[in-house]
């Protein structure tokens, strides 16, 4: 379980200093699919980065079960990311000079996962193991990034606008892969999006506006990637 208590985060200095996160308190249950929904500039990506230990809050606490990660040293945070967390970004950030197999191996090597090719197979890329990121479409690159994140067997998967750079069909496909794999492996998902339709796929939706949580609600029925609008 991830618990955030009164998180505050500021950017800038002096006159240009402004508050990006204002007293954020939330709880994310294990195995949940949580969507952080908000317009551009609402602070949703900063919240994701803070929850995932990529950024430090200026005040407040974040608990992973009973461990307060705001108190951890840089090496402990590295260990946390190594053992428990997976990331998927809008821009994929694949290693351009390594092929699909080796990009996924980047995640797998951390978890000593020798069966990582089953995940490549699960995202439908087993025929493109030797292809380089520059030779793949946007959707395929994002699927590599999904496989890379899952190959390290994370307990929590953080996704920052994973379909932001994809067309509708490819976006649905990627989301479907992620949901199918979540059912199989049972990891927690925290996803940032500005697309209200994608929120219908989640268990819990956290709406953000101007750095504050404006609403938290649960969906009684989770829709699939092919049932939502776009």
């Amino acid at each position: 379980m991830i618990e955030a208590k009164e998180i505050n985060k500021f950017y800038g200095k002096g006159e240009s200093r402004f508050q990006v996160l204002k007293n954020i308190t939330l709880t994310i249950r294990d195995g949940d699919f949580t969507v952080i929904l908000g317009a551009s500039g609402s602070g949703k990506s900063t919240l994701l980065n803070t929850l995932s230990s990529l950024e430090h809050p200026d005040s407040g606490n974040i608990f992973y079960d009973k461990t307060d990660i705001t108190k951890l040293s840089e090496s402990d945070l590295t260990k946390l990311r190594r053992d428990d967390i997976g990331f998927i970004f809008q821009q994929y950030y694949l290693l351009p000079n390594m092929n699909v197999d080796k990009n996924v191996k980047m995640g797998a090597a951390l978890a000593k996962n020798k069966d990582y090719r089953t995940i490549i197979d699960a995202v439908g890329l087993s025929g493109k193991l030797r292809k380089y990121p520059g030779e793949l479409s946007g959707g395929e690159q994002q699927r590599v990034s999904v496989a890379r994140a899952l190959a390290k067997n994370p307990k929590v998967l953080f996704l920052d606008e994973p379909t932001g750079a994809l067309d509708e069909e490819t976006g649905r496909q990627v989301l479907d892969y992620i949901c199918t794999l979540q059912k199989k492996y049972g990891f927690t998902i925290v996803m940032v999006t500005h697309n209200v339709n994608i929120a219908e796929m989640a268990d819990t939706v956290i709406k953000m506006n101007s750095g504050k949580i404006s609403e938290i609600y649960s969906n009684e029925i989770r829709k699939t990637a092919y049932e939502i609008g776009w």
Partner: protein
Amino acid sequence: MKFEKPLMRLDGEKMLIGIKDIAKLFAISIVTCCAAFVCALFLNYNIDIVGIKDKITNPQGIIMYNAQVASGKVVAGVSGGCLVVTTVVLLIFYVKNYIDSHGKELGILKALGYSEINIARRFWVFGISVLIGTVIGYAAAAVYMPTFYDIQNDMELLPEMQPEFHSFLTFSLIAFPTVFFMLLSVLYAFFKMKHPVLGLLRESQNIKIRKSKGKKNDEKDMPFLTDLKKNTIRSRKILVFFVGFSAFCFSSMTQMSMSMKELSSESFSFMMISIGLILAFMTLLMSLSSVVKSNTKTIAMMKVFGYSQKECSSSVLYGYRPVSYVGFAVGTVYQYMLLKIVVDVIFADFENMPEFHFNFKALGISLIAFLAAYEIIIYCYSRKISRQSVKSIMLE
């Protein structure tokens, strides 16, 4: 009616090269400063000494005259030549790096309709660094020249000389190199701008995919970090060359200057050692900073995934270590061969010329200094990377 430039054009020009970019070229200024200093000093002396040739009557004076003329030519030629080659390499490297890291802006300008030559001609400003360096170097030589002449006069083997001003030397050492390097920057940029617009816009264009020859290598199940180390080196051959070249410069310049102590006067060798060390450290610092800069995104991604600082450094930075050792070894052989040729061929007719042997002491000192400098710089950059937040790296 007055014709005004469209705003877009002005904005486009602003997008190109700023003062900040030129400031980064300080290494070129330092190298050209050294080149102008050495060449101005020795060439001026050589021109002046030729003017008093008729006044030399005693045989000892003639021997001294011939030795001075020959060693002046060698020092100006060898160190000036080395420094010019270094400047060419540095300048091309800077222009290439600039185009690679500003590919998107340049691609947009090209897409907007700016011609290749219109964009490339803005790169003349890179030559300003050469102008600054040569002016300072020439001025320093002019200031030091009376002292330098006094040292030579004190030997009392040649008629007393005073430094004279030679305008064509000023032209050759300031105006000519400046124009040459400005043209070189423009031409190289023009050549690089030949890439299609989409190629410039795509970031991945800068990283060439090196496919293994055949499936065998690709399927080799080596550990990820070892694989990454190999791939990082293979994907940016220009950096491999530059790291090797900097080690080559370090090795050859430091050893050559120490060996020349035995072959020439104290002031000659002091100058060579100073210039050698400046050049060696500049190129080494620049090459390693480029290695770190070009791999920051890979390091950032590794940190996000939970790779430790040590793993990041070892896979990205330490891979260049063997390359630097090879560069050092080649530099050692090169300086030995060069000095051997100078002694055996150019000074062959001179009496009392000491026999030249490989200088193991110089090799030892140079190697220890190189290892220390290399590891300290790598350590400093590793620390710098560890202090940078992942977000700041990814936003770059």
